[in-house]
Structures are given as structure tokens and as C-alpha cells.
């Protein structure tokens, strides 16, 4: 291409005009990366989970149950009179896709909030983008805590809530000696740090601790070590496909569930179905929800979901229930924000600011009433201890008497306390966006 003098002149002029008067070319910041809400137009939310790849097993269910929840909300009149429109994107189990699609959902689709992620690794991949845009993430599953961002709301148990009752219960019923087995990444290691504190309090003894590469299916060496260490029970934070292999090989190697059960934070209905009920029966699970919870709200949820077009996988489990709750936390938060600042002025920031203390009553929440903490925006809930039965369902043996408070920095008191505005260090300094 030849550059004529005229072309050069016009280009330069246009360029300098763009630099000189940015507001002409770049829309105001709220238009650019906030959602622009119009009364009557549907409310767009981003749903970013993996539908393909290694993480598809739990995350496909998350997508399905969210669609179910939004359908239910829309049928009941939507939020503030408008329907919710989920924008569903496949993250392909690839962490770079998670962060890329997060940008796309915020900038191009202009969603008002995101529901995303199952693993801590993917959450940590997208949080910087979310914080940069001052946007809002609903993280609908259990995680390790030790984060204090001003842009996330979590509806699952964090490490300090998850094993609090399980460890004393197992020590009391089976004995003091325990062996920790986990997948080799951040969540199991942080969870085990918490579990050690509970174990110390009840005078238990840790006879071994082993971590298995994520996705590995060879448990022979670990089971041999367990055979030598002779613990009274095993505490497991093994996740995903490995968890199924672990339970199968446990029985195949001749271990007896009544003499040395596995107490797990992750082995729910979907895992027991994949391994076969005979490999799951007798083991223990700590979770806020199991499919067989006996209350009218849960009966309605289970029946409604399994009959709907989203219920093709045939179970409801704790991760799905936590995801279902997140849709209602969003609804309540949005409505509260709309009442305070007006429907058209609701921003992700406003929703988050009005979400503290939101209660999801037991006529909506299948696990019973829960509420969002006003400081760290995790969820107050009642962890339950359940045992897998011969048919693969779980029977609740013990439910916490009172709601357990989420405390993301419980084992790192020197870091400070998570408040609404940021992580407050012991010396009074506040750090924002700690991940």
C-alpha cells in the first residue's frame, strides 16, 4: 500500500482526535464493562463451567442445575420483573480458557454477574480479571478459604467448616489413629492443615500423610503404606476420577470398610454411582447436603430437578445443591440492591455490597436455612456427616447443632481477619483483593 500525503494527514488527524477526545470514541466506563440494564430486557448472567475435558464430570452438573434454577426463577416472575438469561460458555477444562472467557463475558456479553469454576486453580485464574473489572463471581462449591476478595460470594463450605465435626466423630467411633490421603494440589493440603487442628483437639494421632498426583489412578503404594501404618480410619481429600479409583482399589486390596472406613470430604452420590455402590457402601462423607435429606424443600428440589430436562444424570449431590443456592443468593442480592439504588443503576459492585447477611430460608434451600457472612461473604451452614448405604445413597448420621461460621483465615491468624473492605491485618492495615 502506498502512503499518500492525504492518507497520512487524515490518519494522523483521526488518531490525534481520538487521543484528544477519548470520550467520543470510548464509551463511558460503565457502558464499557458494566452491564447496561434496561427495564424489560432480560438479565444476563455468565455461566462458565467446563462441559468438555477432565473437569466435565462435576462442572456439567453445575451448568445443568443453574439452568434449572434460572428456569424456576423465571417461571416465578424472574428477578425484579425481568427474566434471567444465562450465557453458557464451555471452559474446556483449560485454565487459560477460563480467564479468556471471563473477559469475553464481562466485556462483550456485559453480564451482571458470573457463576463459575469448580477447582481452586480455575478460580484463581479468573479472579484477577473479575477484580480488575470490579465484577462479581459466584463460586458455588467448597474450597480452602485463605482468600479475601471484594468480588466473590461462595455458597459452599470452606476448610474450617468442612471437617470440624467429621474428625471428632470418626475419632470417637473408630479410634485415634488416622491416615490422610489427598490429591496433590492446594485444596487437600489446606483442608488437611485444618483437619490436623481438629485432630489435635480430640487427641488423635496422625500416622501418615500421602498425596497422589491429580488424575492418577494408581493407589497400590499408598494402600501398602496404609496397611503398614494400621490406622483406625482414613481421612480423604482425593478428588475426581482418582477418588473412584481409590475406593475401588481399597476394597480390591482387601481392606474392610467396617474396620477402617474412609471419611471423605468429596465422595458424594455421583462418585459412588461411578464406582458402584458396593465399593462406596460404609464410607463416610461430610457435606452440607446429601440427596436423601428428608425435608419438603429437598423432596421438591430432587423430584423437580430429576424430572426436568436437566436431570439426565440422575442424581443431585452437594456440589449441585450449593450451585442451586448461588442462583437464589444472586436473586436476593440483586433485589436488595435494586431496592436500594434503583433497578437501572444496579452494578456488580452494588449486588455484592448488598449481599452480606442475605438469608436463604429453608423453603428455598434444600439443605436448610443458610446465610451469607457480612464480612467475608462465605456461607453459614450446617455440615452433616453421612454414611454411604448399600444402594449408593447417603444416610445422615449427624448434623451440626448450630450453623458453623465461615472463617477463611482460621489457621492463619497472623494474616488477619477478612472484612467487607479487605483483609484486616493485626496491625490494622487493610489489604484489598487477597488471593
Amino acid at each position: 500500500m502506498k502512503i499518500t500525503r492525504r492518507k497520512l494527514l487524515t490518519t494522523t488527524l483521526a488518531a490525534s482526535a481520538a487521543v484528544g477526545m477519548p470520550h467520543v470514541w470510548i464509551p463511558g466506563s460503565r457502558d464499557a464493562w458494566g452491564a447496561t440494564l434496561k427495564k424489560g430486557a432480560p438479565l444476563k448472567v455468565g455461566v462458565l463451567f467446563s462441559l468438555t475435558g477432565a473437569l466435565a464430570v462435576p462442572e456439567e452438573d453445575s451448568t445443568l442445575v443453574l439452568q434449572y434454577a434460572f428456569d424456576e426463577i423465571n417461571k416465578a416472575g424472574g428477578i425484579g420483573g425481568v427474566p434471567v438469561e444465562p450465557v453458557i460458555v464451555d471452559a474446556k477444562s483449560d485454565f487459560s480458557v477460563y480467564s479468556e472467557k471471563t473477559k469475553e463475558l464481562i466485556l462483550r456479553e456485559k453480564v451482571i454477574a458470573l457463576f463459575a469454576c469448580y477447582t481452586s486453580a480455575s478460580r484463581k485464574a479468573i479472579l484477577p480479571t473479575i477484580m480488575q473489572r470490579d465484577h462479581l463471581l459466584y463460586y458455588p462449591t467448597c474450597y480452602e478459604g485463605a482468600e479475601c476478595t471484594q468480588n466473590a460470594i461462595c455458597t459452599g463450605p470452606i476448610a474450617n467448616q468442612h471437617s470440624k465435626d467429621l474428625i471428632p466423630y470418626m475419632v470417637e467411633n473408630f479410634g485415634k489413629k488416622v491416615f490422610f490421603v489427598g490429591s496433590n494440589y492446594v485444596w487437600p493440603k489446606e483442608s488437611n492443615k485444618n483437619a490436623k487442628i481438629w485432630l489435635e483437639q480430640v487427641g488423635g494421632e496422625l500416622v501418615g500423610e500421602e498425596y497422589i498426583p491429580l488424575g492418577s489412578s494408581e493407589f497400590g503404594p499408598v494402600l501398602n503404606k496404609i496397611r503398614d501404618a494400621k490406622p483406625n480410619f482414613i481421612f480423604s481429600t482425593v478428588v475426581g476420577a482418582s477418588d473412584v479409583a481409590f475406593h475401588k482399589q481399597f476394597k480390591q486390596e482387601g481392606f474392610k470398610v467396617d474396620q477402617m472406613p474412609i471419611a471423605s470430604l468429596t465422595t458424594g452420590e455421583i462418585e459412588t454411582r461411578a464406582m458402584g455402590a458396593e465399593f462406596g457402601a460404609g464410607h463416610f462423607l461430610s457435606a452440607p447436603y446429601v440427596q436423601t435429606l428428608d425435608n419438603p424443600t429437598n423432596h421438591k428440589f430432587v423430584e423437580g430437578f430429576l424430572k426436568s430436562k436437566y436431570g439426565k444424570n440422575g442424581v443431585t449431590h452437594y456440589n449441585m445443591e450449593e450451585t442451586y443456592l448461588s442462583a437464589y443468593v444472586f436473586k436476593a442480592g440483586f433485589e436488595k440492591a435494586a431496592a436500594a439504588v434503583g433497578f437501572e443503576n444496579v452494578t456488580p459492585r452494588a449486588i455484592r455490597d448488598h449481599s452480606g447477611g442475605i438469608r436463604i430460608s429453608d423453603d428455598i434451600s434444600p439443605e436448610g436455612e443458610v446465610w451469607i457472612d457480612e464480612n467475608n461473604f462465605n456461607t453459614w451452614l450446617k455440615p452433616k456427616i453421612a454414611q454411604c448405604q448399600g444402594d449408593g445413597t447417603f444416610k445422615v448420621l449427624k448434623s451440626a447443632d448450630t450453623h458453623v461460621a465461615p472463617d477463611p483465615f482460621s489457621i492463619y491468624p497472623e494474616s488477619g481477619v477478612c472484612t467487607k473492605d479487605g483483609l484486616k491485618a493485626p496491625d490494622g492495615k487493610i489489604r484489598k483483593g487477597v488471593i
Partner: protein
Amino acid sequence: MDFGSVLNALILGVSIASIWLIAALGLTIIYGAAGVINMAHGALIMLGAYSSYMLQHYVGVPYLLCIPASFVIVAIIGLILERGLIQYLYDRPLDTLLATYGVSLVLVQGVRLIFGSDPKYLAVPEIFSSNISLGFANISTFRVVVIAVTALLVLALWILFYKTRFGIQVRAVMQNKEMAASFGINSSRIYMMTFALGAGLAGVAGSLFGVLNIVLPTMGDSYVVQAFLMVVAGGGTLAGTVIASGFTGELQSVFAFITNDTFARFVIFLLIVVFLRFRPQGLFAKGGVRR
């Protein structure tokens, strides 16, 4: 560190070796005989597991019969694959790599579309879900089954390649395709048969892994890397793969016993890299002309 634990670790090493080996057998045949870098190997393993699941769940075939049936089904799929695609690409090794990778994506997503992405379940006879205990030595019955099937397959392959007419033809084609063809061997047919055989072996591996592990569309991914390592370290020959698998299996078990599983893997991969630095052609490189 008492004697019983060490013995258990060594026995387990044999079992781990048999798992590595059976995952790599099909790949060895395909790579060794036809020179095809078959990236679809993991998908073929997965198809083996799904064939067993399908036969068991919809037809009611007992598990032990599912193993040979999976061999036949996946071998037929391999045959179709070879006739429809691979046979046009023998002179272009890089293209086979891409083409087979593409095939694996198609197979994995195809299975996901048909069966869904939730994990499936393979039932086995009650006797397989327990263990054999001889004093201080312990091993699970199913691991013994895997070792036995692997040993049988290795023996059968050895007889096939070294004691039959077909084996002589395969080895002739391996050494020099043009020369073998000029002696009246139909090399195209030999390639077709070996590819189908390799695929069938992956099918058997899949139907066994479905019991040890989980049945998922992506289940083959975790086996394909270690299978390639065994084939490359072994030099692409049957004996090489057997010995490479034996060593790595024992090493993994012993290192995992002394330290932990993560470190054991690190050591194994490091040793293989060092080994290949000094012997890039692998343990037993085959003679003759390499394409």
C-alpha cells in the same frame, strides 16, 4: 522397613509394570510394525472400556467375556480407521500424528455425545473385588488378573511374531517394505492387520482399566503418555517394551514405598529422560531400514 513391606512393594511393582505394559502393548505393535505414531491410542483404550460397559449394561454379557469381545470390537474400529484414513498417510509420519490426534478428539467427543459425560460403571464378579493374602504378602485378585492377561498377551504376541508365517511377513515388512513386497508379501494387508491387532490390544487394556479406574470419555488420556514413554524407552520392540515397563513399574513401586508417589513419578520421568539422552534409539532398537 520390614521384610513383608518390601516384599509387598516388589509384588506391587510387578502389578504396576503389568498395567504400564498392557497400556503400551497395542502402541508397540502399531509403532513398531507400521511406524505410525498413534495419538488415538488413548481413545482406543477408552473405546475398549465403553465396549465392555455397553455389552454388560445393554446385552448382559458376563465381565470375563467382555474382555475378548472388547478386543474384537476395538480391532474392527481400528480396521475401519486404518482403511479409511491411516493407509493414505504411511509415507507422511507427521500427518499421521495430526490425523490420529484428530481421530482421538472425534472419538472422545463422539462417545460423550452418545453416552454422556457422567462416569460409567463396570461390574465384576464378587471374587475380583477382594484380595489374596499369603502371610505377609498381599495382592488384590484383580491385579493378579491383569498380570495374567498381560502375560498371556505377551506370550501370544511372541508366538505370533516369531513362530507363525504372518509374523515372518510382518517382520519382513518392518525391515524393508519394498523388498518384502517384491517377494510377494501384500504389505498393505500386513499394515491393516497389525493396526487392527494393536487397536484390539488397546481395547483389552481398556476393559481392564475400566475396573481398576473410572469409565469416562477422557480416561485414556492418563495412560497414553506413559504408554508412549514405554514404547520409546523400549525402542519400539516387544522385548524392549516388556523390559522398560518392568523396570519402571518396579522403580515406581519402590520409590513410592521409600518416599511418596509424587516423588516416584518425578524420579521415573527424570531417569527416562537421562536414559534417552544417552540411548535415543531406546533399549532394543530394531535392525533394518527405518522409514
